[in-house]
């Protein structure tokens, strides 16, 4: 038997109990991250990608029901005992959270917050060992070790996010989950933070799951990309292929949303996707993307399409792939 993958998610369903009925946020997602691999998850707000991230360390809110498997090194996180789970948290897999601005406790010095993670996972560390390690970590993310004595409000957004990255790497995890690590940052700082993060991950050979709505960022950094829509995987494949030559119309729309350098058409025709993602509480049968899809036809309506594997390790969930396009569709696609 071969070694199990670092992270293997199988048929994951997450449903929130809300006042207005059950809200299925994730519906049957499969995902694999191998050691040293960076996997991207893309999709709009509300497509279930952050919910997916939270279940990896079983951090979903109490009103969520989770079924399926989340195997970390072959062991199922969802059925682990509390003690085991706490040991996996941060030391096995750590998370760089979305809202870096609020993810650090405002009343503790950042050094103390990093030290806390160190102490939780290895008892009896000496003061000098811990201080040395904090200095090293802050240095790696390009911060002055003096900063360990600062409080979060004394740091800029980019510095806070770098502290978060330093903290995520503190216990040498095998997997880092980055949940929209650059959402609140401006473009320059975003580029800095992403390069720090990906460099560190590549240097250490750890696996990373990177969640973003920005397909162009993922295309740059990731080995593989999974595109989610309304809680399901609609396309999966090598990063460059998914971005440059998407199979699923939704992946196509995401990709077209970012202008390409040297393509005047893309630059002058901002390609938004009309409409809003569906309310997961009231999903009609059939393909959930059909109401917004430029290629929707009658064949899309009877049943939700399954993820089908194509050449070069690619998969997509769309019944119309491979069908010839009508001239009208082609002209619409051209503008889209």
């Amino acid at each position, binding site marked *: 038997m071969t070694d199990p993958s670092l992270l293997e998610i199988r048929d994951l369903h997450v449903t929130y109990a809300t006042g207005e009925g059950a809200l299925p946020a994730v519906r049957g997602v499969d995902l694999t991250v191998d050691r040293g691999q960076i996997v991207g998850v893309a999709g709009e707000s509300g497509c279930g990608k952050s919910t997916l991230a*939270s279940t990896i*360390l079983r*951090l979903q809110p109490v009103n969520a029901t989770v079924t399926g498997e989340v195997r970390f090194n072959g062991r199922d996180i969802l059925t682990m005992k509390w003690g085991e789970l*706490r*040991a*996996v*948290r*941060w*030391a096995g897999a*750590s*998370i760089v*959270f*979305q*809202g870096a601005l*609020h*993810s*650090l*406790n*405002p*009343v*503790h*010095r950042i050094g103390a917050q990093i030290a*806390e*993670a160190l102490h*939780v*996972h290895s008892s009896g560390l000496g003061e000098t060992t811990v201080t040395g390690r904090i200095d090293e970590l802050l240095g790696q*993310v*390009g*911060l*002055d070790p*003096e*900063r360990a*004595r*600062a*409080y979060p*409000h*004394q740091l*800029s957004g980019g*510095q806070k996010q770098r502290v*978060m990255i330093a*903290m995520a790497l503190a216990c040498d995890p095998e997997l880092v989950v980055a949940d929209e690590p650059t959402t609140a940052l401006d473009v320059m700082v975003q580029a*800095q933070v992403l*390069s*720090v993060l990906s*460099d560190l991950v590549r240097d250490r050979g750890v696996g990373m799951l990177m969640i973003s709505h920005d397909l162009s960022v993922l295309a740059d950094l990731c080995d593989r990309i999974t595109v989610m829509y309304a809680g399901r995987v609609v396309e999966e494949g090598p990063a460059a292929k998914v971005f440059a030559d998407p199979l699923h119309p939704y992946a196509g729309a995401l990709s077209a949303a970012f202008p390409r350098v040297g393509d005047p058409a893309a630059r002058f025709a901002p390609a938004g996707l009309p409409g809003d993602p569906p309310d997961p509480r009231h999903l009609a049968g059939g393909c959930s993307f059909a109401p917004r899809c430029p290629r929707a036809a009658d064949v899309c309506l009877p049943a939700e399409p399954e993820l089908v594997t194509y050449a070069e390790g690619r998969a997509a969930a769309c019944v119309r792939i491979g069908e010839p396009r009508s001239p009208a569709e082609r002209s619409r696609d051209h503008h889209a």
Partner: protein
Amino acid sequence: MSLVADPGLVSESEDVQTRTRGYASYLGLKVLGAIGSLMFMLVVNFFLFRVLPGDPARTLGRGRLTTDAQKAAFNKAYGLNQPLPEQFWTFLKNTAHGDLGISIQYRVPVSHLIWERLWPTVLLVGTSTILATVIGVYLGIRGAWKRGGRFDKISTSLSLTLYSMPEWWLGLMLIAGLGVGFWFVPGIFPTGGLHSPDVNPSSLHGILDTTWHLVLPVTTLTLAYLADYSLIMRSSLLDELGEDYLLTARAKGLRDVQVRNRHAVRNAMLPTTTIIALNIGFVVSGAITVETVFSIPGLGLLSIDALQAPDFWVLQGFFLVASAGVILANLVANLIYGWLDPRVRT
């Protein structure tokens, strides 16, 4: 990596220094503020008693000082015949020397009287504030952490019930139930006084006796103010529960109790600290009622006596001490706040 050129790095060590100085200046500012309030309070304290309706000489004479000569003699003895600015200057000088005047009722210096009556009140208010804070904060934390659970439901409804009870009524009920006894149940606790008349209060027996006497009044004040703290603590902890840094703490592998105590409670204590300090003033006023109900010879009872006499200089002295106490409590709260929350220091 292009991070070396980060302009934020250049001024960092300088930054840290200004921040350390920031804490000292925060303390200095708060102390100055407290002194300012104290000054303002002195002015108010003086003029408040000068604008009160009625002629002190006549009121104090209870109709017996009828002749103008007698009134003039009284006014001269108490300096009331001097112009107001001069009276104020004398008041300031005397107060600075710890001279608060002579009690009309007891014929002893007010400062002695207050000093002697201060300790029972400090004991009563101090003990109940500490107990109410500790129990209230504990109830608030436990309730909020398992919101909607059985503990939360019971403690919240209990808090609301206690919150709506006037302390004098609660005190009377406790006296009736546990002091006098009811039905065939005998009373356990003394119904009033600070200690039994026949014991030396500074002996070990005396201390135990005083403690025994304080059980009911302290319980009354504690129950009356506990609800405030538990409800505030509960709601401010509930506000913290959705915060992202708690998710970070959980993700780090901390136990539930560690997440609660190290991360959530510390932040939720901020509003609670403010409320506790603001409440000290109300607890002092509550102490007046409770001391009256339990006949404890503290400042509260003294002030009631002085009001009935009326004994202006004692009242003035009581106001001074009570407001100084509230200002001091606020100063302490500010210092604790600065220690708890690094953000207010800068």
